[in-house]
């Protein structure tokens, strides 16, 4: 994992002092509310329905146990003892006091953490695959590039006042995409060209929100050393020509669509030609040095499927179910990747208490070299667990509520905070998630259904990624009543697509039945190896419509 040096520490310290200064001026009335707004947003501070909200950055999802313990303390000392993992690898506090925020940021800075650029019209936290560096199927580890991008984007002087927020995601797995890169403002996909050189495929102009779009590729291959200058060229074109007259048309996706991807690519290329040889061009030394921070931990020489594991698997169906769903293959023999699901029925998606954060820190120290990752599906990963200790870990996870064996299934939903917390909501989302989880409480049935992404957002801002759920649920307001619209066929993976609306919306109490009907259509029509998405793509919308509105 990246370790700060004197430069990073100094810069972060000065940031905390700067924000303290700004907060004091704001509280004294020397800064008007709208002048303070972008300053606090770029330090993670939002003002919400009931209270301020602080969004703390977890760069590309990586955390050390020491950082988790500090997050737990902050959650306890400055909030109500619980926090919320978001869909962009961040952690949110829901009730901090504005005047305490500089102290929170100072406490975070002591463990090399911050809330930089987690909100506001700037370049946000760069995200990536939670299995980076430990999966078998990976071109190279994407994290060194994420850190280089993080540093480049941190307090970038030219891009702090963009037309709108800007999100970058990186994927390095050729067979799947756990980072949803095609629905980001910029998606970068590591791959090799015919000459075997390393570089990125560049998607621009994807995004969710009220105009969901899958981003087009504007360049098939940009060599690794050129990635920062190329990003700078894209951002400069966007900063100059993105719309600023209408907030709803200000994302880069609107600019790319209006100019056409071809023309937009030409503008970027022309700009890049001018700056490609500036000192911003990465050096081989910088890439090598950065890679040196993401080396392998001290793995032992082990065999796959040790007796301790195989015996436990045959002894317990519950363990075996969990192993099948929540444990993934590791690149090293004898190791496994374990996902802790934060999707226990009755607990809002992504919520964790201070004690749970501490428990995760202890587990990381005991089982996974003191590191964890957080995922955009709002779960937590222990990436380096010995297979012969999986059963022991499972036993430890169960009382903590982290062993619900539903990873990737219908009840492992993405869900935004919705009307319970969010001022922009049209409808509540947490109770809908819970009602669906209660309806589908039979694990064997869930396993039989296989991988299904069900995503819920409380309004068209789409924080819950409903457009790219295989089943998407969107809260809508009809004459002051909460209703829910369903879309089918979305995906955020390599075959990214935006779901299509099923038809008129439903009342909340009907939602579990409606989802059951949709699932039944799949069960009736599927062939043996088809996932829900495959079946939907083959048979289309009509059979679902007929059943649900019958």
């Amino acid at each position, binding site marked *: 994992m990246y370790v700060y*040096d004197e*430069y990073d520490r*100094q*810069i972060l310290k*000065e*940031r905390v*002092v*700067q924000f303290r*200064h*700004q907060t004091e001026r704001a509280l004294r009335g*020397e*800064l008007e509310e709208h*002048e303070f707004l*972008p*300053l606090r947003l770029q330090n993670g501070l939002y003002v919400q329905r009931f209270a301020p909200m602080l969004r703390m950055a977890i760069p590309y999802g990586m955390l050390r146990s020491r950082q988790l313990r500090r997050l737990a303390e902050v959650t306890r000392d400055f909030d109500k003892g619980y926090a919320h993992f978001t869909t962009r690898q961040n952690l949110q506090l829901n009730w901090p006091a504005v005047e305490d925020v500089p102290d929170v940021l100072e406490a975070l800075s002591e463990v090399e953490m911050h809330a930089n650029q987690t909100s506001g*019209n700037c370049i946000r936290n760069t995200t990536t695959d939670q299995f980076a560096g430990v999966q078998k199927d990976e071109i190279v580890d994407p994290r060194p590039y994420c850190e*280089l991008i993080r*540093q*480049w984007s*941190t*307090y*970038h*002087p*030219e*891009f*702090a*006042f*963009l*037309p709108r927020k800007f999100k970058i995601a990186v994927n390095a797995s050729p067979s799947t995409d756990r980072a949803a890169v095609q629905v980001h403002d910029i998606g970068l996909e590591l791959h090799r060209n015919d000459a075997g050189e390393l570089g990125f495929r560049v998607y621009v102009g994807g995004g969710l929100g009220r105009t969901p779009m899958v981003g087009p590729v504007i360049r098939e291959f940009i060599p690794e050393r050129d990635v*920062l200058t190329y990003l700078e060229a894209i951002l*400069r074109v966007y*900063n*100059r020509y993105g719309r*600023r007259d209408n907030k709803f048309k200000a994302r880069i996706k609107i600019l790319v669509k209006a100019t056409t991807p071809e023309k937009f690519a030409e503008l970027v290329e022309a700009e890049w030609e*001018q700056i490609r040889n*500036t*000192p*911003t061009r*990465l*050096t*081989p*030394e*910088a890439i090598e*040095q*950065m890679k040196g921070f993401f080396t392998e931990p001290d793995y032992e020489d082990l065999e796959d499927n040790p007796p301790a594991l195989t015996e436990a698997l045959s002894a317990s169906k519950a363990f075996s179910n969990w192993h099948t769903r929540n444990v993934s293959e590791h690149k090293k023999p004898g190791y496994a990747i374990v996902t802790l699901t934060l999707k226990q029925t009755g607990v809002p998606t992504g919520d964790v208490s201070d004690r749970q954060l501490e428990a995760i820190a202890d587990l990381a120290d005991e089982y996974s070299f003191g590191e964890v990752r957080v995922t955009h599906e709002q779960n937590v990963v222990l990436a380096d667990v010995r297979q012969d200790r999986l059963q022991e870990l499972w036993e430890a996870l169960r009382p903590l509520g982290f062993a619900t064996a539903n990873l990737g299934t219908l009840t492992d939903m993405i869900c935004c905070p919705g009307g319970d917390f969010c001022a922009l909501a049209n409808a509540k989302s947490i109770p809908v998630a819970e009602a669906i989880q209660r309806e589908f409480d039979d694990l064997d049935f869930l396993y039989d259904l296989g991988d299904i992404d069900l995503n819920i957002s409380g309004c068209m801002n789409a924080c819950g990624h409903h457009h790219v759920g295989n089943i998407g649920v969107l809260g809508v307001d009809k004459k002051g009543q909460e209703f829910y619209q369903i879309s089918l066929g979305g995906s955020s993976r390599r075959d990214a697509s935006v779901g299509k609306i099923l038809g008129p919306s439903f009342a909340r109490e009907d939602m579990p039945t409606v989802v059951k009907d949709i699932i039944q259509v799949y069960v009736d029509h599927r062939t043996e190896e088809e996932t829900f998405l495959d079946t939907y793509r083959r048979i289309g919308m009509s059979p679902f419509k007929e059943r649900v509105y019958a």
Partner: protein
Amino acid sequence: MPNLIRHDGIHTDNWTIVHPPAEGEAVEVPEGPALLPAAIWKDKRQELTGRNDIGFWLDSHEEPEDLADYVNEVPVIGVNFPKFSDGRGYSIARLLRERFGFRNELRAVGDVLLDQLFYMKRCGFDAYALREDKNPDDAEYCLNVFSHAYQGAVDDDTPLFRRRWAS
């Protein structure tokens, strides 16, 4: 009198900013120091060669490319921030300095507040017509908030990765 911040301290701003005229009206070039709208200055540049106290200003939607060939004919170029949250001026400043080689004073005008000064300086500004209600005594701190920066920009084109990991 409003304040003009330069890197050597606080000055009094005695420059007039001339606004674009309404349709059909002519522009009077003031007696004293003034910044003309860029397009007007371009039209009049032949007659203004004797004046060393006349520059031009660009609004945030204007293209500095249109003035690229003439930048060093003026002692001052202003870049307007109609609202402080309109970030186009930062790109304009970098282009004027890095692409078109402007060497004289680059001045931020309009909604110029304290908390943007550091970014402005990095993008090539060296003078700031601070909005009148802001305390100019805070400017020095705000111009120098950070002792290092990750990126290369106008003030220092060497990104941190080249400094900490020299080849």
